[in-house]
């Protein structure tokens, strides 16, 4: 884990209210794994006070080591992300990272199903890249992507360029299937296009409601599923105990999203109306 001032390489709007930022940061790029995140200090002043967490969207490593960058994908939802969207190339940005535990990728995966809702697509790109490079037995890599409207369906081309099969659902029907991404998951599981058992893995990131549904559906099929959680964070190093999530070990046994996660086995989590940020 490091704290540093890094240079912004680019910061572009990829879809209305969604931005992609590239940061020149070999310290993080050289260490980061898919699913880990960084903490961004959005201002030198004391409002906003706390750092904001963003999962690593993409890791670019240079062979020479002279240049390597991380990318984050983010949505403007409040003042912190608003300030970030105004940052410019060459500006300095204060980062902490890489933080947390990323996805555990089994070398023997044959079928990987990635499920993303809205900004939940963010970690799945680096995950897809890693699966492709790491899992020699991989047969099928499929991404189910959902959003409210077409503007919320992110990075389809990037995934397709990797050879990922992408299926899309939008709540307003503005792109492909009208409905939820869980509909796509149900269809997929129905179709039986996957080798059941331990060689199929599911990875999901998105709103709590989606993750809860996905976890339930997947559990019924006996497929292992890793989910990426969000929570309000202060320290991100496991010190403040602010970011906890309920686990099935009991209603009051908590895990820290920052340190024990943010990626969890979906079986671990105890879902209720107030899970993490609700």
């Amino acid at each position, binding site marked *: 884990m*490091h704290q540093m001032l890094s240079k912004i390489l680019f910061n572009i709007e990829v879809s209305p209210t969604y931005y992609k930022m590239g940061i020149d940061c070999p310290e993080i790029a050289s260490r980061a794994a898919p699913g880990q995140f960084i903490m961004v*200090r959005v201002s030198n002043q004391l409002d906003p*006070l706390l750092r904001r967490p963003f999962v690593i969207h993409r890791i670019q490593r240079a062979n020479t080591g002279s240049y390597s960058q991380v990318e984050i994908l983010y949505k403007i939802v409040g003042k912190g992300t608003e300030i970030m969207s105004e940052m410019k190339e060459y500006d300095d940005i204060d980062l902490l990272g890489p933080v947390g535990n990323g996805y555990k990728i089994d070398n023997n995966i044959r079928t990987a199903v990635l499920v993303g809702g809205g900004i939940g697509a963010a970690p799945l790109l680096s995950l897809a890249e890693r699966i492709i490079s790491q899992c020699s037995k991989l047969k099928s890599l499929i991404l189910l992507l959902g959003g409210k409207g077409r503007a919320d369906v992110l990075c389809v081309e990037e995934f397709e360029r990797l050879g990922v099969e992408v299926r899309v659902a939008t709540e307003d029907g503005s792109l492909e299937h009208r409905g939820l991404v869980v509909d796509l998951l149900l269809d997929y599981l129905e179709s039986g296009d996957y080798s059941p058992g331990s060689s199929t893995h599911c990875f999901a990131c998105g709103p709590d409601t989606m993750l809860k549904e996905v976890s339930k559906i997947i559990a019924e099929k006996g497929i292992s599923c890793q989910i990426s959680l969000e929570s309000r964070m202060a320290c991100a190093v496991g010190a403040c*105990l602010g970011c*906890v999530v309920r686990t099935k070990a009991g209603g009051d046994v908590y895990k820290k999203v920052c340190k024990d996660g943010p990626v969890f086995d979906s079986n671990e989590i105890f879902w209720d109306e107030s899970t993490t940020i609700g």
Partner: protein
Amino acid sequence: MDLSVNIGGIQLKNPVMTASGTFGYGEEYAPYVGLDKLGAIVVKGISLKPRPGNPPPRIVETTGGMLNSIGLENIGVDRFIGEKLPYLIDSGATIIVNIFGSSIEEYGDVANKLDDTHGISGLEINISCPNVKEGGIIFGSDPHMAFEVVNFVRQSTKLPLIIKLSPNVTDIAEIARSVQDAGADALSLINTIKGMAIDIETKTPKLANITGGLSGPAIKPIALRMVWEVARVTKIPVIGIGGIMNAYDALEFIIAGASAIQVGTANFVNPKATVDILSGIEKYLSDHRIGDIKSLIGTLSRE
């Protein structure tokens, strides 16, 4: 340059300590800070038995501050001694253990267990907890109850006792005098101020616990005033806490009468905050040709 201070019998190499609950058990921040470089590490509040803490959400940001309702989650004194203390001792840090209980007896029991434990320099007693037996009234909000708990803990341990005061009171100086009379070796203040935030879309509190404790730079002026009020009327050393983000803030507390300071929320914003504050204090002393930090304590003029 002499940065050392003595806090009620605890010799600190410098006045910069960590605030309980914001620095975990020390190891979490070891990648950023040499633990042995600080005045002392005050660990997360410890109780007799492990406590799960409050349900999430537990934190919310506010303007220049944050609310927390961690609910004193901790692994209990036995696991602390077994699992966390050895690492801290190895690090070379000066260790102060923050403790609390829900009855006077429980305070005494934790203090007693730590009394026999090697490697601990002192105890910080958090009296901002509800006294379950007396119907939930906070120990630290009543001078008599505060006296009772400190008096009892005083008899349970030979370790130096720092009493951590709650700011949610009409007259903090009165409580301070009361715990001084009960045998406190030092005082630390302030703990968090009770606050609240509401989600106007869901019409629910932003914290599952409804209310939480406000910390961070937003509370600094209040903390500084209380430290000043307490330091003028007590004889034992005072540790200043509350919204200290940089060396300037720390120096304000020292000039107001604090013999040492604790850094809390600032660690989250800048994990190196403690060491940055320490070097900022050193620079101030050398710029102002002050050879001994002790000569700066309580030097506020125009009182």
